[in-house]
């Protein structure tokens, strides 16, 4: 579907180096990286707004590296939406239909259909200046999707929205993806990546440092950026259930107490390694999650000592070297681990 082969771009002091990845048809591909890592430049290169110094871009088997922007069949939604402020919502959405062999009625119908899908039918005659951030984002998506792009490129689409609107838009993006749209989405937010992506590539300082499924990338971080979220290594597919009046997350057969407003949902739970307390005996505390397990591995890292404990599922606890000595932690030893229900974060998928 979309293939980048050794794309290098130079722009002043910054450069993209040998970027290669493949987005297959139907993928929701996340490009994850910090600000300034080069994510947006990758998108602009694919769209043809930036010319690469070397490398190839292939879309649907056709090399398009030197192709005109308007001939690539790519839809790009900018971070700041880039809605045309002097046109109405309807004129914005129908902008790309100019020059197509469609009657006025057909164009109007297309606009109505896409507006209905994105729930903005009531906004069609409005000016962009009167719209909220969430509404602008929907208009930007409608304006791009009406072209039926081979790949939808999204540049930090949820970055400047409040959490309620973010949740709504995540659902919308999932819906668009379910309808068969191939998506390449760049973000700095690992929760967004986990929540939406089925493939993830991590970009750091202009180069792809890791790619794979979310599980592969988060379980075995190969970059400082991912390692920065070391707690994310406690990242498990889970199902939220109600049991005896309390909320639990089922991870395989293990039942984890969780504090969430979600009911009966599937997704991931995250527990930060530094939120897990280790002890040689079971302790009575406010932590409602208390499991006994066996230490599998002890690895010193720059952020502390990563202790991996098998308690039915493998937990990563981050402790100080002092604690390792004090608790006499060694591989194979039985140990108790404790964490609060409020330390468990649920991300719906």
């Amino acid at each position, binding site marked *: 579907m979309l293939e980048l082969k050794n794309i290098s771009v130079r722009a002043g002091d910054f450069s993209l180096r040998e970027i290669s990845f493949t987005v297959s048809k139907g993928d929701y591909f996340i490009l994850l990286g910090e600000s300034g890592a080069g994510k947006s430049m990758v998108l602009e290169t694919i*769209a043809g707004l930036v010319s690469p110094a070397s490398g190839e871009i292939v879309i649907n088997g056709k090399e398009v590296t030197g192709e005109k*922007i*308007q001939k690539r069949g*790519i839809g*790009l939604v900018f971070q*700041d*939406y880039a809605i045309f402020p002097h046109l109405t919502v309807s004129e914005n959405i129908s*902008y*790309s239909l100019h020059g197509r062999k469609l009657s006025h009625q057909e164009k109007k119908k297309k606009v109505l259909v896409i507006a209905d899908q994105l729930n903005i039918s009531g906004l069609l005659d409005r000016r962009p200046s009167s719209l909220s951030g969430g509404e602008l984002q929907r208009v930007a998506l409608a304006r791009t999707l009406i*072209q039926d792009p081979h790949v939808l490129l999204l540049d930090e689409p949820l970055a400047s929205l409040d959490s309620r609107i973010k949740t709504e838009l995540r659902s919308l993006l999932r819906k668009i993806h379910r309808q068969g749209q191939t998506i390449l989405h760049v973000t700095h937010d690992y929760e967004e990546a986990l929540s939406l992506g089925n493939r993830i590539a991590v970009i750091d300082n202009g180069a792809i440092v890791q790619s794979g499924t979310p599980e592969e990338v988060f379980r075995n971080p190969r970059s400082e950026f991912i390692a920065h979220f070391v707690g994310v290594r406690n990242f498990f597919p889970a199902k939220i259930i109600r049991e005896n009046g309390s909320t639990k997350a089922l991870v395989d057969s293990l039942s984890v107490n969780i504090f969430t407003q979600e009911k009966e949902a599937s997704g991931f739970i995250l527990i930060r390694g530094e939120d897990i307390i280790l002890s040689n005996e079971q302790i009575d505390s406010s932590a409602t999650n208390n499991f006994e397990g066996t230490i599998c591995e002890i690895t010193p890292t720059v952020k502390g000592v990563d202790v991996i404990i098998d308690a039915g599922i493998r937990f990563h606890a981050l402790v100080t070297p002092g604690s390792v000595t004090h608790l006499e932690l060694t591989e194979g030893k039985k140990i108790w681990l404790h964490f609060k229900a409020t330390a468990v974060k649920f991300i719906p998928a």
Partner: protein
Amino acid sequence: MKNYQPFQLFLILLGALILLFIISPLLGMFLKTSPASLFETAKEAEVAGSIWLTIWTSMAATLVFALAAIPLSYLLARKSFPMKKLVTGIIDLPVVIPHSAAGIAILGFVSRDTVLGKMGSAVGLNFVGNPAGIAIAMAFVSIPYLINAARDGFAGVSERTEKAALTLGASPSRVFFTISLPLARRNIISGLILMFARGMSEFGAVIVVAYHPMITPVLIYERFGAFGLKYARPVSVLFILISLTLFIALRMLSPDNRIFTSGQKKKDQ
């Protein structure tokens, strides 16, 4: 009531003096001109013809030269190229050189023995002493106002908005006409009005190129030279009144009220 600090009062006093400096001579001239003399002057065919000539030559100069000046402004706002600073400096040259000197330069450029003059003669057009020569002189001294205002307007249009249009399948020319131009329109209209106004008020360059037919600034000068202050005053007042009416009308018709503020950045989102 807001309390002002002594320093702010001092600034207000200085500002008031400047305003007084601008208003007093004009007000004095208006007060010394009787409505009857104004009416009589307006009836003179020479005066009416001169005012009309001034308006249409400046309008024509503005519109014709805008066709190339606006695209140049876009280039200046968007593209980097070698010696861009030099180009910008050249554009500002007409503002800084004495306009009589500009007139001499234009005369040398359009007179019968030059390439342009010969081309004009071939189609029966003699720029010297002709409205076409007047329009060229007006455009020469006033075009920087349009270019600079339009350039600021284009610079204020977000490049992302233009890029978005490109990704939506628009050609670069469609992006220019449907996105960049409409979004920069306030500055462009402001620049057009400034260029038009500056052209209308030009004297030095025009008098060298074309003493006849007489544009109003030249007519005022001639009446002053031949008959004195008293006879020059009603024409001046009439010209000012018509110019003001014209600019207020243009200002009201323009999409933004701050048309005389060039360089304002357009809000993009």
